């Protein structure tokens, strides 16, 4: 990865879930959302936090998100599709 998106996204995830800050280190692109015990509503909350942070709109609903996103890498990919990271370029 050439950008800082993973650590930034990891921070958003940790913040959204009210988890201790040090757990950021545990998150990689391959980390599954299941291993973080993320519920469908929490997943949408994370998407909303990404939207807020990067001022973009991610077009996906709660059920779709749960069915299509398995890993943190999938989340990054979805974000990128909707413009995540372009600001930094």
């Amino acid at each position, binding site marked *: 990865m050439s950008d800082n998106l993973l650590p930034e996204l990891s921070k958003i995830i940790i913040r959204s*879930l*009210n*988890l201790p800050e040090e757990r950021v280190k545990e998150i990689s692109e391959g980390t599954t959302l299941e291993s973080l015990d993320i519920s469908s*509503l*929490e997943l*949408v*909350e994370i998407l*909303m936090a990404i*939207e*807020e942070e990067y001022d973009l709109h991610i077009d996906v609903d709660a059920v779709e998100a749960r069915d299509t996103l398995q890993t943190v890498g999938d989340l990054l990919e979805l974000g990128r599709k909707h413009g995540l990271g372009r600001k930094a370029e």
Partner: protein
Amino acid sequence: MMSVPRAVITGYGCLTPLGDTAPETWDGMVAGRNAITPIPPSELGEVSIKRAGQVQRDLSEMFEPRLMRQYDRFSLLAIGAAREALDHSGLEITEELAPRASAVIGVGNCGWEATEEGYVRSLVERKRRSRIFDVPRVMPSAPACHVSMQLGLKGPSFGVTSACSSSNHAFSSGLQLLRSGEAEVVVAGGAEAPIMFGILRAWEALRIVAPERCSPFDLNRRGLMLGEGSGAVVLETLEHARARGATIYAEFAGAGASADAGNLVIPTPEGPERALRNCLANARLNPEDVDYLNAHGTGTKANDVIESTVIRRVFGEHADRLSISSTKSMHGHALGGAGAIEMIACLGALQDNLIPPTINYETPDPECNLDVTPNQSREREVGAVLSNAFAFGGLNCVVALKKFVD
């Protein structure tokens, strides 16, 4: 024809300004303790209401921080009371029992903590988006949902709302589930967390909140004190309780309700009178069977006179032998949660043959000339008790308990 099942109470719990458990709360009531405390200032603005009954337990200990985001304060209060009630009952919710076990929880308001946080986020912090848990936190059925989920109750479950009568209507609904055969166990109760800026401002506008203390039935009473809290009981059919060898704390003898269909905030005697008479009939009690009546007793000018009039009308001469008290003088008026907290007073009175007092009572009001058990609890044999709840909007509900006799 199959007979209608009898309903008994086999466990109870609460979270109130007087204590974090039912025994603590009951001890506080018996001691006549004033649990009204100063309200911490709000960042949102000045409110003239400075004191209220507030639950002292730190609710953030109940779940890990991540899960806490799912719950409004009123749901946490309900869960706390329901957990205690179930523990107290010793009942295990097995897979077999679960579909026949219900949660019915009364609330007067919605989840106001989440409502207020949502507005602060949008209007003060100017965030573009609300929180994902706002909808499930705010919904008035949230306490019932969470009690059902926490305890694994899969029978007919729902929230009940009728302002200050909500808890009694919830108990009444629970009783009906047992009597109709739809459930064998109901965790019934009520909860309210109204010590929030927006609700305080709204009550300030009504101008019926007392400045310092609540003095029900006293000539110089100046209004109610708001309070928060919750209470819950485990209701079971007698057959179910017997089969598992449960300790039975009381029989839930009956309930009666009515609507004034009159003024929004000014009570009339007719509606409450019908509720009381309906309750006695439903419980198959004669007026002279009743030893203690936990009054609605808000401490407002209007309520206490109307309620005294109604008690005289219904009980006739027995009104002079009836012990009455308003425990709201100690814990405040918890609105939709009030009846559930007062249920603890009724159960305590039945268990211990002790009448909890009306505190802050100094000067008798000739228009409220009843024995309101002034300032000190009193020993007396208690066989049957009633608890009144009369709500804004004229929705009234009275419940009756009696000592269980085989």
